[in-house]
């Protein structure tokens, strides 16, 4: 049977998700930060990790944004085939973002014209719509700050490229980010698809749970690559704020997709330590 969901309801849910994501640091990210704090031996790194953990506590308690860069709202929507939406979905999402950001005193960081810049507002959001089975509607809001978004790299490899070349590209992308993108990072990687799809996958990889346990990817072959990359990245000695230490990244999340016989797109999308997202199902 068809389930009817009103655009108005979606607007309210999106608004709430914007607040939750910006005020309450994801549990998995917080747990990874705590475990990094315990493992870190470098005093300065430890002090910075403690400040980051304390910051999350204050943000949650006082309903203050975890970071003043409350990002460009990236919204992922999965619509069950059995759902009919009354009203305009995209406009509901944008209105929800605007209303949530205003309510939470979040930052208006969106300029209408990328070249002329000018006055800034809250939206449009970056909206990714996908279809799924069932009759549920799943919405995720990922506010992406631009300190780290600016470090994104895409490379179109030859189809015969060795895995070592790809790994080197990913590690170098992290090295090039240095201290600027607010380490410790969560490294999102998209491999396969087309150029644009690899970038989408890299972003989507950031939605996956952050964990240092080696079995968090369905494909153990990919999981092994993730673990190896994490080890290499944490030997870079960038550390929290780029001031040294063994915590340069908390996790490497790879998403893969079939691709063309002539190519092998790889995109690296880095997240700062304030990896924020919130999900709801209607």
């Amino acid at each position: 049977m068809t389930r009817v969901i009103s655009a108005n309801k979606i607007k309210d849910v999106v608004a709430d998700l914007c607040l939750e994501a910006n005020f309450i640091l994801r549990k998995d990210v917080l747990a990874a930060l705590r475990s990094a704090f315990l493992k870190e031996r470098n005093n300065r790194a430890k002090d910075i990790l403690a400040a980051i953990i304390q910051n999350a506590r204050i943000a949650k308690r006082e309903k203050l944004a975890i970071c003043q860069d409350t990002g460009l709202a990236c919204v992922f929507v999965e619509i069950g085939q059995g759902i009919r939406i009354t009203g305009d979905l995209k406009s509901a999402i944008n209105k929800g973002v605007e209303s949530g950001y205003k309510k939470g005193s979040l930052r208006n960081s969106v300029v209408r014209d990328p070249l002329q810049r000018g006055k800034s507002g809250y939206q449009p959001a970056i909206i990714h719509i996908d279809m799924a089975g069932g009759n549920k509607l799943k919405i995720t809001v990922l506010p992406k700050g631009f300190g780290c978004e600016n470090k994104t790299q895409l490379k179109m490899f030859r189809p015969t490229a060795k895995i070592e070349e790809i790994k080197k590209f990913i590690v170098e992308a992290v090295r090039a980010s240095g201290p600027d993108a607010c380490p410790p990072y969560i490294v999102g990687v998209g491999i396969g698809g087309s150029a644009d799809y690899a970038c989408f996958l890299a972003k989507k990889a950031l939605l996956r749970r952050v964990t240092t346990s080696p079995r968090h990817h369905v494909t153990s072959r990919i999981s092994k690559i993730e673990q190896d990359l994490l080890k290499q990245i944490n030997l870079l000695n960038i550390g929290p704020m780029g001031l040294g230490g063994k915590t340069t990244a908390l996790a490497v999340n790879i998403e893969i997709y079939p691709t063309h016989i002539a190519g092998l797109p790889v995109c690296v999308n880095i997240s700062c330590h304030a990896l924020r997202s919130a999900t709801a199902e209607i």
Partner: protein
Amino acid sequence: MRNLKLKAGDRFLLNGIIYTARDQAHKRLAQAIKQHKKLPINLKGAVIYYCGPAKTPRGKIIGSCGPTTSSRMDEFTPALLEAGVKGMVGKGVRSKEVAKAIKKYQAIYFLTYAGCGALLAKYVKKAAPVAYKDLGPEAIYKLEVKDFPLIVGIDARGRSIYE
């Protein structure tokens, strides 16, 4: 002078007035300096904080207010230092030109906790936009801070914590 005593890597608690300015405010300030126009704030001895705060929630002094990436300001920084700026607060590395200019004008570049805007808001005792208000979050805010936590990134001799 105090700037000369601090070394890269030293921790420091700042008390007093700092001005926020980021990309667009830097562009305007640098242009105004070049055209010998009157500046909206006095840069002599000023400390500039690379920050665009979140909006101020009701009942609070300021919203989340952590540092933004300093290197985006590099192309404008030597002009601001020549105009009298003595301190900068941000995150990340600076260009060689900026390090040279810091040494030349005996200024100082500080780092502060990156991505910790809620925590840093605690050290701000007063806040008000004072210039370029049309820029919204990129306006220049005058902040009065108490024990604002800093680490010296580049000292007045041009030495960097990252090297």
